[in-house]
């Protein structure tokens, strides 16, 4: 049943479900045949039955004598008596037959469901297709050729095959301005697209099939690309914070920075989102754009206020080398730090000594022992009166 559901969800062939069903049927048949075969009874089985029937070992003993066989009268008497006692046991009460009806019914329902899933229920792909046609956006008063272009672009975005060239995006944005509902749909799709791209970049996969064809991809190392993405996010956040923060001391018409109540705040927010989006795409794919972005110019809100729709993009492009260096340095520092809950999901359960973080130290280390020569005394001098005796003792006399 689970296999049939999985096959159906994964758009697999119905043959797989039927094949698995047939394989299971064969396996169950083999197991039933194996378990139902006639097996020789052992002493252990006889002992278990004897214990269950409370025959005090008579059945076990009789079982052994019935196998070995003997003409002894005592054994014959024993076997006859054991048979009589075994006949008095209510075996149906001792070993009640288990009703298999619910299990068989459940098995039958499962088999029918598997067959129905494999044969009767329509494919998921057709459902998806039907759903996608139903979601086609129709704008009132839109020319047919523009409507067709819009549909094609939306379909590409849903399929994830839309290329991020500026002309296409500009067309899409222009069309989106015509209808607020369409604007919202396109924003959500773009966010989803950005999320997928970011996930692919994290996994080290190419963001877009077209990326593989671009020779400039190898121009940027991965760590630089990540640093650029981080920088772009921080620029966008910084711009947004400055635009939306009423307490921003730099908010003025001269500086171009806006507070939350300014009339350009919403426009700036949208622009910063676009800048962030575009910067990520360029950072991941276009080395020349990244170099241009590194080319110079100040960072921060002074630039952002002077820019139009492409203001954030230009702002990111003009990020100076110092900011990149700082970002890289920060990235390096953060990469060396394990923050529990952020990049470390499990607590380091090693002991402190194992983690080389032990705070223990020797506080009472004895100073290095030095040899005090002042306490050394010279050996006692040889008494001069004994010198001749010693000499005579050690010098062999000729």
């Amino acid at each position, binding site marked *: 049943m689970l296999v049939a559901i999985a096959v159906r969800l994964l758009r697999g062939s119905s043959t797989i479900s039927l094949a698995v069903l047939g394989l299971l049927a064969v396996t169950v048949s083999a197991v039933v045949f194996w378990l139902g075969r006639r097996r020789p009874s052992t002493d252990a089985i006889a002992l278990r039955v004897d214990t269950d029937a409370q025959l005090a*070992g008579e059945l076990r003993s009789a079982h052994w004598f019935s196998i070995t066989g003997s003409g002894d009268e005592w054994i014959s008497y024993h076997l006859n008596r054991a048979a009589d006692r075994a006949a008095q046991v209510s075996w149906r009460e001792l070993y009640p037959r288990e009703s298999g009806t619910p299990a068989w019914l459940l098995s039958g329902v499962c088999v029918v469901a598997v067959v129905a899933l494999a044969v009767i229920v329509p494919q998921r792909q057709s459902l998806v297709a039907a759903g996608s046609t139903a979601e086609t956006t129709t704008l009132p008063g839109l020319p047919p050729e523009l409507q067709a272009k819009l549909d094609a672009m939306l379909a590409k975005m849903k399929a994830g095959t839309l290329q991020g060239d500026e002309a296409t995006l500009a067309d899409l944005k222009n069309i989106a301005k015509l209808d607020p509902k369409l604007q919202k749909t396109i924003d959500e799709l773009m966010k989803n697209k950005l999320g997928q791209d970011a996930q692919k970049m994290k996994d080290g996969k190419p963001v877009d099939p077209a990326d593989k064809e671009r020779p400039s991809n190898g121009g940027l190392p991965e760590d630089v690309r990540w640093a650029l993405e981080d920088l772009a996010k921080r620029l966008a956040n910084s711009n947004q914070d400055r635009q939306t923060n009423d307490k921003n001391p730099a908010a003025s018409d001269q500086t171009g920075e806006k507070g939350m109540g300014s009339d350009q705040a919403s426009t700036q927010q949208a622009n910063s989102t676009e800048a962030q989006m575009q910067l990520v795409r360029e950072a991941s794919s276009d080395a020349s754009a990244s170099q241009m972005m590194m080319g110079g110019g100040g960072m921060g809100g002074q630039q952002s206020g002077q820019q139009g729709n492409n203001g954030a993009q230009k702002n990111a492009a003009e990020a100076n080398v110092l900011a990149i260096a700082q970002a890289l340095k920060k990235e390096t520092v953060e990469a060396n730090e394990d923050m529990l809950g952020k990049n470390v999901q499990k607590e380091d359960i090693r002991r402190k000594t194992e983690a080389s973080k032990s705070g223990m130290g020797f506080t009472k280390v004895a100073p290095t022992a030095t040899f005090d020569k002042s306490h050394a005394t010279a050996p006692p001098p040889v008494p001069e009166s004994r010198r001749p005796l010693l000499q005579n003792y050690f010098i062999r006399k000729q």
Partner: protein
Amino acid sequence: MTATAVAQHIDLFRERFVKITQEVGRRIVGNEEIVSSTVMSMLAGGHVLLEGIPGVGKTSLIHTLADVLHLKFSRIQFTPDLMPADIVGTNIVQEHHEKGGTFFEFQPGPIFANVVLADEINRATPKTQSALLEAMQDQSVSVGTTTYKLDQPFMVLATQNPLEMEGTYPLPEAQLDRFFFKLKVKYPTEDAMHHIVDRTTTSGDISVSRVVDGAQILEMRHVARSVPIAKPVQSYAIRLTLGTHPDSPYATPLVRKYVRYGASPRAAQSIVLAGKIQALTRGHAFVSAEDIKAVALPALRHRVLLNFEGEAEQVNADTIVEELLAATRADG
């Protein structure tokens, strides 16, 4: 022998067994298990070693049993200066009145009886204790160059005080092994004490009647040996015996730690034979694992020899055997 005859044999055996135990129970208060095991040993042709502190009724039990059985009874009080000849008998010089001259004549000792009470057997020296070896094993006595067969049924019922008491000699291992059962007579309970005091401090004397004779006992012995035993049950008895050896795969941790030597093959013989009698007393024509288990402790406890560590820690052999019984599976 037909099935009916087998059934009659079983019933008769059971009836006589119950009669003996009931008759002994008229005089001996409590200790039904001791009485039953003693009768069981007698029916198996074995000897019993009764151990207990003085005054718990060991000698009274044997006296009563001899009264119930229509058998020749003799008592040997073992003392440190008792000699082997005092037990088995000796050749003495006799004068030939008609022909003149002298000749040696064998004077049988107290061992020549059906039921021999060896009272306080561990108060005699091992030399004297060993005088019983041949009688107990071969049911015969050799004096000089002549071997005398003992009358059947022959049974030695020995009593001994615990070894911790003064003036006792431990029985040699070979002598211990010849005892079918070693029974520990426990101190009577409060109720049993009341019965004992009532029976022994009044004027009335409780007399017991003789319910079986020697021929009937021999017949019961024959019936007991006819009971068939299945190989798996016999295997259980053998595994219990082998399990008392520290180097056996069936040995338990306590056996490996505290036992120097395990039980001899005589232990397996005793267990199986006692199991057969136990089955007959229950009216069964077969031996079950439960029968084996019921008789294993008295058959094994005196055959397990402790090592130095066990002696030093005063480990009880009963504890070792009980652990073995709990650990050994009947279906192994």
